[in-house]
């Protein structure tokens, strides 16, 4: 609009000196075009622009840090029992107004009543174990399981999908048949079956999740590579005699990276959910180990008497899942601006 106004302001008697040739500067026409930037930089800029994504990323970082150092912040370990201090409601000095006031449902101050000096930030369970430590230990275990599961899914999925798509032909259709059948089986069922057969524990839960988890990744990688390998830049590379492995590593994978990263991001909350789900139906970790699912299961049993035992881990797991989902959503939109409306 600035330009449109200019004609009206052109003085009638522009000094004639201006009507002389200007040296043509070759560079100037190039200046006008927008500066180029890599797709990843673009994506990062879009990602940063979304408040929800930034907030989620910060919250995840905070929760992950507390999950690592949190258990050490309390002087109790996650499995240390102290029956004299059982079933104490949460009490954080200074945060009484938020409900962390050490009072039970009848509004009596249990700490005063039972003469307890230490303030348990998230309260204690029926064995007098410190819930602050247990919740963060649980978060630590949940995150650990999710991370391992996501990484192994990534490894198997990329390998399987990449090989299937790259070699194509009969190899591909045989491998695709297997995937098709595996996709037809509800993963929940497989996970439950394997959780029943294997001894309950961190390793077996992770394993159970990987057995079905890699299929989604393999499909995405296969789809991407199939799409990319017929594109002209790959053809060009091939025509120039570039080796197979170089084509895979330098041309195919970097271009398929976006959807892969997004899928890993979605894998994390899924794994956290399944772990908690298994624990909730009694197939998860065994006492005294605590994951968020175990804590919710324990809390649920005593919900009516001691609601804090349910609410605190429930809020924690919901928060971490919401943050991961928002981050993954944001990443998907940022990497594929076409889908963003």
């Amino acid at each position, binding site marked *: 609009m600035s330009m449109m106004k200019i004609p009206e302001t052109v003085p009638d008697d522009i000094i004639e000196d201006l009507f002389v040739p200007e040296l043509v500067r070759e560079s100037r026409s190039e200046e006008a075009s927008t500066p180029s930037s890599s797709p990843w930089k673009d994506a990062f800029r879009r990602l940063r622009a979304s408040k929800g994504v930034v907030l989620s990323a910060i919250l995840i970082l905070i929760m992950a840090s507390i999950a690592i150092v949190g258990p050490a912040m309390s002087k109790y370990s996650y499995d240390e029992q102290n029956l004299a201090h059982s079933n104490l409601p949460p009490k954080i000095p200074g945060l009484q107004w938020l409900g962390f006031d050490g009072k039970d449902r009848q509004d009596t101050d249990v700490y005063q009543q039972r003469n307890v000096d230490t303030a348990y930030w998230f309260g204690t369970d029926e064995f007098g174990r410190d819930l602050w430590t247990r919740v963060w230990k649980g978060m630590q275990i949940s995150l650990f399981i999710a991370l391992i599961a996501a990484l192994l899914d990534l490894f198997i999925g990329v390998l399987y999908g990449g090989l299937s798509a790259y070699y194509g032909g009969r190899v591909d259709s045989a491998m695709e048949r297997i995937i*098709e*059948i595996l996709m*037809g*089986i*509800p*993963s*929940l*069922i497989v996970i*439950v*079956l*394997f959780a*029943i*057969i294997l001894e309950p524990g961190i390793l077996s839960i992770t394993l159970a999740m990987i057995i079905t988890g890699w299929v989604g990744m393999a499909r995405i990688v296969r789809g991407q590579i199939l799409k990319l390998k017929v594109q002209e830049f790959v053809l060009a590379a091939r025509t120039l005699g570039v080796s197979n492995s170089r084509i895979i590593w330098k041309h195919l994978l970097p271009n398929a990276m976006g959807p892969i990263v997004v899928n890993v991001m979605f894998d994390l*909350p899924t794994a956290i*959910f399944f772990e*908690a*789900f298994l624990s*909730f*139906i*009694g*197939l998860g970790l065994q006492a005294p180990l605590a994951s968020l699912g175990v804590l*919710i299961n324990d*809390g*649920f049993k005593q*919900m*009516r008497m001691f*609601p804090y035992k*349910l*609410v605190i881990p*429930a809020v924690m*797991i*919901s928060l971490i*899942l*919401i943050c*991961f*989902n*928002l981050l993954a*959503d944001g990443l998907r939109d940022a990497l594929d601006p076409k*889908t963003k*409306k």
Partner: protein
Amino acid sequence: MIRFLLKRFGIMVTTLFIIATATFFLMKLLPGTPYSNPDKLSEQQIAMMNQKYGLDQPVPIQYARYMGNLIQGDLGVSLHYKGRPVSQIILERIGPSALIGFQALIFGSFIGLALGIISALKPNTLFDYGSVTLAVLGMSIPSFVLASLLQYYIGVKLKWLPPGLWESYTSSLLPSLALSVIVIATVARFIRGEMLEVLGQEYIMTARAKGVTEWGVVMRHVLRNSLIPVVTMMGPLAVGIITGTLVVEKIFSVPGLGEQFILSIMSKDYSVIMGVTLFYSALFILTVFVVDVLYGILDPRIRETEGGRT
């Protein structure tokens, strides 16, 4: 079209067969047979079992018998309930699960569609932000967390609806509500995305350029084209609802199949676990099959190309 159906049907049967086989051998890996609890079965019953299921025979013969029985709909007998047939247990238990499942599906789809459609038509408004937030919460918060909290706040504290037990129809409302949240969130998100995509298509502009009113554009062009893909959500929704019933029934003490499944896991009643697993898988696979067929009928492009080519 017929060839397309046959191919899908073939995949369906193969998948079921593989699941049945895998389940059978997985269960063979586990210690214990129906006889490991001798106090629960009489000598006579054991003899009958042996004759029918061949449990004293080598594994391959057991497998053959098992598959043979399966085709006739016989899923074996419970280890825990004194030889009651698994299929009978499933039939007894399926009613409440089906009730809350369907209620959640219908209620959830209705609300989800409404939220998603309004959101897509009024993007970037307060309503849109609200329903998108709601959808993210519904997708993220695990059903068992939500169900426990609903039970505590609506059932126990506010006493608006019965918090548990299976006494009257109203008992089914809270569990259905808890289950429907995932449906609402999934459907709302999906239809919103689809509609925004369709609204950006050139044929919508063509319709507008013809002078079609906004109402006509939405009803005749946008909705039809965005509702067709919603059919594909039935598979994931079936999984969501099955997953949900397991925990929701446990929480609200609904005497459904999900609660039975968890009870059987607790009591290590392997034949029931196996039977219910097969049942759930079949349900899921059937849903996927129906979705494929429905999609073929609804979308003229699939109808032609798939039917002609494959």
